[in-house]
């Protein structure tokens, strides 16, 4: 099999531009033929292997850790606990009063108190992974067990044991962001008030590549080199340097190829810092590769939330007010840098979504529990609150006897910019158009007819409408009052002597194909073939502080920085050429690898000629121009960001006996502004939808009442496979962003956001004759089976 990388023989679909073209992913040849380089692929001379002694109880005190027996095993090079390593703790903070946010420390290794099963207590290092696991078995830890807090109800109960002493009622975050004056009046005067009480399961984002780190000290560079699979290499550098007491220049973080991140790798982990500390002490390369059991029990989790929400509607189905109480179970620790507020703040500020909402009251809380901590996971709260709001719409439609699609139409924001009751200004989107197209498509394909015709089958159709804020700049993150405010990003571009360019970006791909899409942006700006553009990413020594890739920021912010840097380089080329061609800069323009006079297009200099002068014949450079060809740029967003939007439609069939849910059709109409590479966008949508379906129907991390995880392998954590995920239809609408350089909006998370609501609504539609409504995810199949069996029993009783 020959795999061709994207080359210049691709058709340039959009008037000679690379942007908008489905160029083949340039990463794929190496990734598909096994020549990619992931952390675990790297092996260094003298390298040793680390493993972590982890707590076997969910709550309690550590009385002693005996590492002696482990240390005496032949081949074991070290076994250290927190006292041995004396590492600084991580503390993620928000600039909010203690009544709203309680900061808590996360030690690198727990030394006194343990807060979840799987928490790291000590690191052992051995010459191979087998011996490292033998060493783990030889370690004896004595505990004084405490009482574990494992549910939201337990955490909030009076007299509950405290996961962190300073957090009364186990409440880490308690914010009431909005309470508009008319809320109570709206409920009092409403034609109908509907409510939803919903719980969503704890999930693991499950990147195919588990976490991992490889660290060594480089004497010559006086640097600790840390290879790790992180979405935020610079933040890892900062925290590692602080924790180890090193100058920041003495830590270099390199992220090679990554097999997914989905958010859980945009926080700083404890293990990579402990591995770095071990490498410093041993003066040897130390590698740790998280195994799947650790990934499922001791990594970062997400999504366990409880919603108690009411909504008021007038008789025409117009939404008047929402009153929401959101509680997020964030597990044992606040993640760095986002804190435990990540989920409740997202839910509180963004819940109104695509709908015009006159009045809004919301309380958002984060509680601590004795479970593995939560981190952002693709969508962050949006899959949950969208599901709740979409259930409210369905319920109101039923109460008011309005078609469920029609009631959405009546409430969608259609005039932009729109500033909501949540003080967010929404830029233009295609909310109504996407809903109409999605409904029309399913109708045209005959799904409504099938549902209404097949009386003996249980077929349902469900929709979800949503928007998602992407391109969070410093201003938007500062509104969260984070101590570390991500937002801007940076790019450097260099043209070499042969006229080809190297671009470095502070964002990095963990599967999203930035090496292709960023190159498309640069190629357009400079009139190059994308093969002449190489993208570098994921190395803290190669670029000024960048914030990496999360929150659908890469193309919007990183892509804009890259575009601006390319334009600056182009300006420099024009400046040089203008001098050399004896004309004014306004009289020259870039044209397919040359700088050409506007007034006489037959006169031009090629990039290669210009670069040759810039480097090899600097004496020919006009006065005032520096040798070399390079430029840097940064980009930030000073408004509320840009909102992508979509409507998802699902057709499902549910089955008696098993309660099984089969997805007959899934259709997504999405709008992420200008799609730099439509194939990449579709890949993002499909992957996201698969994760959304996983949350709706399959995956849940569960614990017993003592906090022991019940999910430790793929036998229990039911990630759906290709057998369970249907073919997904996708249509694109394009409402360009007005302030990103390419008109792109973020496309990384939408799929995940829309799917749970669409599936849940479809399942409820399929159960419409049963009188049962389900609001929790993952949807319990036994509840589906019970609903269907109740109807069957009732029918039988009627027959008798």
């Amino acid at each position: 099999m020959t795999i061709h990388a994207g080359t210049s023989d691709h058709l340039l679909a959009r008037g000679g531009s690379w942007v908008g073209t489905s160029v083949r992913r340039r990463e794929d040849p190496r990734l598909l033929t096994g020549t990619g380089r992931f952390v675990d692929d790297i092996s260094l001379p003298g390298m040793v292997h680390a493993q972590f002694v982890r707590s076997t109880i969910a709550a309690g005190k550590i009385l002693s850790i005996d590492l002696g027996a482990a240390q005496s095993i032949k081949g074991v090079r070290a076994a250290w606990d927190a006292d041995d390593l004396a590492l600084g703790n991580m503390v993620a903070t928000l600039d909010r009063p203690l009544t709203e946010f309680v900061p808590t420390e996360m030690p690198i290794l727990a030394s006194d108190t343990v807060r979840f099963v799987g928490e790291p207590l000590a690191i052992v290092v051995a010459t191979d992974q087998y011996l490292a696991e033998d060493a783990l078995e030889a370690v004896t830890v004595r505990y004084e067990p405490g009482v574990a807090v494992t549910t939201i109800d337990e955490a909030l109960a009076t007299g509950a044991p405290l996961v962190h002493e300073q957090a009364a009622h186990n409440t880490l975050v308690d914010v009431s962001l909005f309470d508009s004056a008319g809320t109570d009046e709206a409920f009092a005067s409403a034609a109908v008030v509907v409510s939803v009480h919903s719980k969503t399961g704890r999930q693991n984002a499950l990147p195919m590549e588990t976490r991992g780190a490889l660290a060594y000290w480089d004497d010559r560079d006086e640097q600790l080199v840390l290879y790790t699979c992180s979405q935020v290499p610079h933040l890892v550098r900062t925290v590692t340097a602080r924790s180890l007491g090193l100058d920041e220049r003495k830590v270099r973080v390199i992220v090679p190829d990554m097999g997914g991140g989905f958010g859980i790798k945009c926080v700083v982990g404890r293990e990579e810092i402990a591995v770095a500390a071990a490498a410093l002490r041993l003066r040897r390369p130390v590698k740790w590769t998280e195994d799947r059991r650790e990934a499922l029990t001791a990594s970062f989790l997400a999504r366990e939330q409880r919603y108690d929400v009411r909504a008021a509607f007038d008789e025409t189905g117009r939404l008047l007010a929402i009153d929401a109480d959101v509680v997020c179970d964030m597990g044992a620790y606040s993640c760095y840098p986002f804190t435990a507020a990540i989920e409740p703040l997202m839910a509180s500020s963004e819940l109104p979504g695509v709908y015009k909402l006159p009045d809004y009251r919301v309380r958002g809380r984060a509680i601590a529990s004795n479970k593995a901590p939560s981190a952002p996971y693709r969508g962050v709260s949006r899959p949950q609150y969208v599901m709740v709001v979409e259930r409210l719409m369905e319920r109101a439609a039923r109460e008011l006897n309005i078609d469920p699609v029609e009631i959405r139409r009546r409430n969608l924001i259609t005039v932009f910019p729109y500033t909501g009751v949540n003080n967010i200004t929404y830029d233009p989107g295609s909310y109504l158009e996407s809903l109409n197209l999605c409904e029309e498509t399913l109708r045209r394909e005959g799904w409504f007819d099938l549902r209404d015709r097949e009386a003996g089958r249980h077929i349902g159709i469900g929709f979800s409408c949503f928007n998602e804020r992407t391109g969070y700049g410093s201003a938007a993150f500062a509104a969260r009052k984070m101590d570390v405010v991500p937002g801007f990003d940076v790019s450097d571009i260099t043209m070499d002597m042969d006229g080809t360019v190297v671009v470095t970006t502070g964002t990095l791909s963990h599967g999203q194909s930035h090496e292709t899409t960023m190159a498309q942006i640069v190629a357009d700006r400079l009139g190059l073939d994308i093969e002449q553009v190489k993208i570098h990413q994921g190395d803290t020594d190669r670029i000024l502080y960048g914030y990496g890739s999360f929150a659908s920021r890469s193309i919007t912010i990183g892509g804009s920085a890259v575009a601006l840097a390319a334009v600056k380089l182009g300006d420099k080329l024009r400046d040089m050429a203008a001098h050399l061609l004896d004309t004014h800069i306004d009289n020259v323009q870039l044209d397919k690898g040359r700088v050409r006079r506007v007034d006489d297009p037959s006169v031009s200099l090629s990039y290669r000629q210009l670069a040759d002068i810039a480097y090899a014949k600097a004496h020919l450079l006009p006065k005032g121009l520096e040798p070399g060809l390079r430029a840097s740029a940064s980009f930030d967003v000073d408004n509320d960001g840009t909102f992508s939007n979509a409507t998802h439609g699902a057709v499902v069939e549910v089955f008696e006996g098993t309660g099984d849910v089969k997805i007959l059709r899934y259709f997504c109409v999405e709008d992420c502004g200008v799609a730099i590479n439509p194939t990449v966008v579709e890949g993002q949508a499909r992957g996201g939808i698969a994760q959304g379906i996983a949350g709706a129907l399959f995956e849940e991390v569960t614990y017993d009442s003592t906090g022991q995880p019940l999910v430790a392998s793929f036998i229990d954590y039911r990630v759906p496979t290709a057998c369970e995920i249907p073919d997904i239809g996708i249509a694109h609408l394009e409402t360009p962003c007005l302030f990103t350089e390419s008109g792109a909006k973020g496309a990384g998370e939408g799929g995940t956001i829309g799917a749970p609501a669409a599936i849940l609504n479809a399942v409820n539609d399929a159960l419409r004759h049963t009188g049962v409504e389900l609001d929790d995810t993952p949807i319990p199949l036994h509840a589906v089976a019970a609903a269907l069996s109740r109807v069957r029993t009732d029918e039988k009783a009627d027959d008798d």
Partner: protein
Amino acid sequence: MKPAAFQYHRAHSVAQAVDLLSELGEDAKIIAGGQSLVAMMNFRLARPASLVDVSGIADLRYVDRGQTLTIGALTTHHDVERRFKSVLSDGYTVIGDAMQWVGHLPIRTRGTIGGSIAHADATAEWCLLAVLLDADIVVASPRGERTIAASDFFFGLYTTALEYDEMIIAVRFPRPAPHAALTEYAQRHGDFAVVAAAADLDVADGEVVSGRVALGGVAPVPIVCDAARASLEFAGPMTPDLAKRCADRIVAELEFDEVATPGGTEYLRGLTHHLVVTALLRAAATESVAA
């Protein structure tokens, strides 16, 4: 997820394998396809001191259709599903068809019938087929060969009548089962079944004269349902109503322990009922028995 240290031995014949087992004692384990054992070793849930690798013994990979059907212990699930499919066409299609439920394709290409039966997972398709079809398990040891009836073979969760120095060499199915079917349910394709049900009907002139139903997943071992025998005796043509009545009786007599399955016993009862009905109707539909 790396196994504890173990000694590795490779056997080239059954005699050599059982001698090794005898010599190494109770801490030795046979490895064939390794599809369950290796995972358990990686979790350190199983930590045999020695492994005796029998996968190189060539003459245990066969399906022989003589007076009875005999399947060599090292025959893979995929062999049965594909390579020997035609051998099964005469009365044993239920066995070949059941293989689609065994894990995923890569598992089926390595896992073996002998390994599956020796492992004795309560939901395993081979264990269910063995009790449903009254198979004989042929085992070898340094003392020679013996045959254990499937009904006497499974003791409990992962425990069997095998002695530490015995090795399964073949499984014999004594009679054809032209009207039999196996079905099961798991939310994800390829997972261990929540419940598996299999039915085997004796049919004369289009009427069910007797039959058996076996269930996996409802008890620590696969069970044959006594209730089914009674309700299928001279029961006439198989109809949805007959299947339902039979399932009613089976489910009524089942005793579930307090189960951790979400939905509890109520869900398991409904699911079992549904699968029994499906298995009975499919078994009848294999030839023209359906009314």
